[in-house]
C-alpha cells in the first residue's frame, strides 16, 4: 500500500512538474503547484457525456486502465520495499494499458478517436518487442522471472537499457513518438470523446503509468536498496523524458516504424543475446 500511495503522489507531482518544465522552457510562468489536483477535482464534479452511438462499455475502460496501473504500482519493488510481481504479469499489465487506449478510441465512435486508436496500435506493435525483450533480458541475466527486489546496475545490460528507454518514450506517448495523441492533428487521440469523471480517471492512470514506467526502468537496470533514492532516480528519468519531449519534433508514422524496426529491435535482440551468452 505504501508503494501505491507513493505512486499516486508522484503521478500528480510529476505531471505538474512536466507542465512546469515545458512552461519554463518557453519562458512562461506555468501552472501553480495545486493545478493537477484542481483539474482532477473539477473533472470529478462534471457531467459525463457519452455520444448516443458510442458503446456503453466506454465508461469502464478508464477504470480497467487505472486498475492495471495500480496493480503494477502496488506490487512493484521500490528500494527496500519488496515487490511481489513476475516478469510475465508485468509485460501483460503494461500491454493491457496500451490496448485499453486502443479500445477507448474504437468504442467512443469518433473519427479522432479512431485515428488515434489506429496509430496507437501501430506504435504498440513497434515498441512492444523492445519493451518486452528489455524486461526479458534482465530476467535472463539474473536467472529469475520473479521481480521481488531491485536489480543492480550491470554493464552487460546497457544495450537492453537503451532499447527499453526508447520503448518507454514511445509507450508514454511523449515526443518524438507522440503520434497517437498528436494535439495539433487529432485533438487528444483516443481521449477526445471522454468527459468528466471518466476523463479524470483516464488522466490519473496515464500520469501513474508515467511514474510506474520510470520506476520499473530504475528497478530493472540501476536498482538501489533505498526507497528515497529509487524514487528520486525515477523522477530524474521522468525529467529526462520531458526534456527530450521539449526539444524534439514529432516523428512521422512511417519513420517511427522504420526507426524501431531497423535500430531499436536490433539493439534489444543484441542485448538479449549478450545476456544469454554472458550467463552461459
Amino acid at each position, binding site marked *: 500500500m505504501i508503494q501505491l500511495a507513493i505512486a499516486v503522489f508522484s503521478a500528480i507531482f510529476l505531471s505538474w512538474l512536466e507542465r512546469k518544465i515545458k*512552461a519554463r522552457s518557453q*519562458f512562461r510562468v506555468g*501552472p501553480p503547484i495545486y493545478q493537477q489536483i484542481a483539474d482532477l477535482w473539477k473533472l470529478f464534479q462534471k457531467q459525463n457525456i457519452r455520444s448516443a452511438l458510442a458503446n456503453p462499455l466506454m465508461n469502464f475502460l478508464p477504470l480497467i486502465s487505472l486498475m492495471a496501473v495500480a496493480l503494477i504500482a502496488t506490487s512493484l519493488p521500490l528500494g527496500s520495499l519488496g515487490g511481489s510481481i513476475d516478469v510475465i504479469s508485468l509485460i501483460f499489465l503494461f500491454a493491457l494499458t496500451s490496448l485499453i487506449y486502443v479500445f477507448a478510441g474504437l468504442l467512443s465512435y469518433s473519427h479522432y478517436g479512431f485515428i488515434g486508436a489506429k496509430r496507437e496500435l501501430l506504435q504498440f506493435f513497434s515498441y512492444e518487442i523492445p519493451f518486452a525483450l528489455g524486461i526479458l533480458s534482465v530476467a535472463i541475466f539474473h536467472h529469475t522471472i520473479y521481480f521481488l527486489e531491485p536489480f543492480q546496475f550491470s554493464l552487460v545490460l546497457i544495450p537492453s537499457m537503451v532499447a527499453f528507454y526508447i520503448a518507454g518514450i514511445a509507450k508514454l506517448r511523449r515526443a518524438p513518438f507522440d503520434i497517437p495523441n498528436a494535439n495539433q492533428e487529432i485533438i487528444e487521440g483516443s481521449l477526445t470523446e471522454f468527459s468528466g469523471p471518466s476523463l479524470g480517471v483516464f488522466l490519473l492512470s496515464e500520469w501513474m503509468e508515467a511514474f510506474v514506467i520510470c520506476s520499473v526502468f530504475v528497478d530493472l537496470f540501476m536498482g538501489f536498496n533505498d526507497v528515497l533514492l529509487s524514487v528520486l532516480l525515477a523522477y530524474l528519468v521522468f525529467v529526462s523524458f520531458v526534456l527530450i519531449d521539449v526539444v524534439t519534433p514529432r516523428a512521422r508514422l512511417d519513420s517511427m516504424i522504420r526507426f524501431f524496426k531497423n535500430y531499436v529491435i536490433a539493439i534489444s535482440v543484441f542485448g538479449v543475446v549478450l545476456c544469454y551468452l554472458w550467463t552461459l
Partner: protein
Amino acid sequence: MNLIKKSPWIFHLNTGGCNGCDLEVIACLTPRFDIERLGCVMKGSPRHADILLVTGPVNMQTRDKVKRIYDQMPKKKIVVALGSCGITGGIYKESYSAAGPVDKIIPVDIYIPGCPPRPQAIIYGIKKTLEKMK
C-alpha cells in the same frame, strides 16, 4: 467547492469572423501573457471544456454548429462572447448571411468588448467570469 475557478479549460470557437480576435486569443498563450498560470488550458474537444469562447458573428452556416457544440459540452459550462461581432454583430450587422449575435443562439454569461479585444482584456474578462462562478 467549485474548482472550475482554479482550472478553467477553454474551447475556442470561431463562428465566421475576420480572425482578428483569434489572433488575440493565441497571443494569450504566449510568454508575455501566459494564461496557463491561471490554470487555463486550450482544449481541442468541447467535451473537455468548461468555457466556450465564441468569436465572430454567427452566420447562417455556423448557426446550427454553435448550438450543437454548446450541447456537447458537459454541464456547468460558461459561454464567453468575445469581440464586437459576437456582442452586436459588429461590421457584419444586417448582412444577408448574419444569423444574429451569439446571445440569440445560446445563453451568454459574459461579454468581452473590443475589435479585437486586447489580450489583457481577455484575461481580465476570464478572471471576472471565474469570480462570477461562486
